[in-house]
């Protein structure tokens, strides 16, 4: 049923039907924003980038191909993810990968109070905040390699940098994250 729905929505989007485009947007906007927010520091900017990503998606959906109905769901996910990542990278490039200023507000990282695994979710949110604190050049490579599964070759082609730079940026990102984690651990011990 879900597959049928996805297929119908995608076909509706291909036909440029605003009704299906809106349904698609409402279904996937949370997913898209979560992808973009890992790359883009500022929440409002992340929303803008996510919107631009959807516009690109709808404008380029004619080139979206699928072989079977079963593969549609996964293909749409990975295609939308790729568009969102590319759109985010475009914005960071425009900003010359300069470090952002201002703190990360907790208000958008939302944890329902009645959730049983609230503690676990809090840890996840903290991890994302750590990733966002990385300098943009390290953050992009870490996100692309560790979370989104790109290879160093793909990263070097996407960012137009040597593969060695991609590897070193990843290594530095890991070291920084480890440092952040150790600092957090020390703080927790002190408070105890």
């Amino acid at each position, binding site marked *: 049923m879900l597959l049928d729905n996805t297929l119908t929505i995608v076909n509706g989007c291909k036909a*440029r039907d*605003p009704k299906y*485009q*809106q349904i698609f*947007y*409402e279904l996937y*906007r*949370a997913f898209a*924003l*979560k992808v973009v*927010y*890992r790359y883009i520091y500022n929440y409002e900017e992340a*929303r803008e980038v996510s*919107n*631009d990503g*959807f*516009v690109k998606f*709808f*404008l380029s959906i004619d080139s979206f191909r699928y072989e079977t109905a079963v593969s549609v769901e996964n293909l749409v996910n990975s295609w939308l993810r790729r568009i969102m990542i590319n759109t985010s990278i475009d914005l960071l490039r425009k900003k010359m990968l300069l470090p952002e200023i201002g703190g990360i507000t907790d*208000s*958008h*990282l*939302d*944890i*329902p109070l009645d959730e049983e695994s609230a503690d*676990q*979710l809090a*840890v*996840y*949110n903290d*991890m*994302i905040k750590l*990733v966002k604190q990385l300098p943009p050049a390290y953050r992009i490579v*870490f*996100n692309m390699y*560790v*979370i989104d599964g790109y290879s160093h070759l793909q990263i070097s082609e996407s960012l137009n940098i040597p593969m060695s730079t991609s590897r070193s940026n990843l290594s530095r990102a*890991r070291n920084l*994250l*480890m440092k952040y*984690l150790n600092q*957090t*651990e020390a703080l927790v011990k002190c408070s105890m």
Partner: protein
Amino acid sequence: MQYVENDMDGLFQRSAEHYQLDAGASDWENISVKLSLHAATKTASNKSRSWLTMLGLGPALFLTMGVCCPKFISEVERSNFGIGYQKIIDQQTVFHSLPEIVRTGNDDELFYDFLKNKEEIIQKKGGPVTQNDSVSVESANQFRSKMQQRFIVYKGDMSAEEIQDETDLQNSINEHRKLLLHSRIVVNIETPKAEIKENTGRNILLDLKHPLRRITADRFYFGMFATLDGSKVKSMPFDKIGFGAGFMFGYNITKKFSAEASLAFQRKKYDSYGKDFSLNKVGSTMPSGMVIKSLQSNASVTEVNLKARYKILQQKRSSVYIAAGLSEYIITNESNTYNVSLNGNSETMRGKYEKNISKLPAVASFSAVYQHSLIKKISIRIEPYLKVPIQGIGIGNVPVTSAGIQIGITRSLH
């Protein structure tokens, strides 16, 4: 935190998958507007591509012919021009037309009609010529013998030949006339400055060779032009190109100041947000509860422009002006495509409107003009401009800002 060190990548992967982020309110309206604008732009750009090609090729071809191939100038022009000579003179030059002396102003460039075997100024750049001075015949004859002139004959194939003697010049012209028949030969006479002392003690320069019989200042000019015009409303981008053509008429008030009026027929294309569109004139014809999100306008506009120009740079054959003025827009036809929200549904509506005259004045115009004299009285000009709205135009009183380039050709009148 032990597990963190062992499986840091895994932890971040799980975090990216499960972290909780407030997606906020839906931004579908914004995306919908962007999509509709993109679709409209794509359609418009496809339609205008052929027009742009024609509009771009026309002036380019014309200018190429005008600048590079003077021999393509019409037979009528050529017969008027015939074998002429062009004289470049410097400041404080005095033309001697015995028994009277006529003085020109500064930075003049004079052309004579030589074909008809009579000498008269047929174009003059610069200030008015006055007859307020005189030099004795004796003084003039005294310097006649000392005058040295250098003639440069530009042949029909634009090659040049330098001749020192006047007799040789006439022979050369006759020879070229036989050889080239209808080809234009321009003789450029460069006269070294010959100084004499006037009774007043001022230094003046004499040209004793060509007596002057009639002087007419070319104060009036007229011409035609074509424009490529980008229009936008407030924060909307310049992403559509309009075009137009028109006529102009001008008057040189002084050497530097001129006034110009023009009438242009244009096609303007612009997008605007619904908030910038006033419903005062059309609100009653629209369904209740309807909200205009954005619209694309395509309007036929007759523009009446009045402007003042000031010359900031004058070179041998080129000049640069800055200009400012006011325009009135008369919209003869307006076609709007509205992207609206009606009862929660997005729809597209279209509206066509007849004549609509904006209140005076609609826009203030600012421009820079580069003008280059091609031949005789004819010049070409390139004029980038910016038009800032003073009042809204069209059925929705939309404040339209325009920027573009105007390419024109002008001819001086006597």
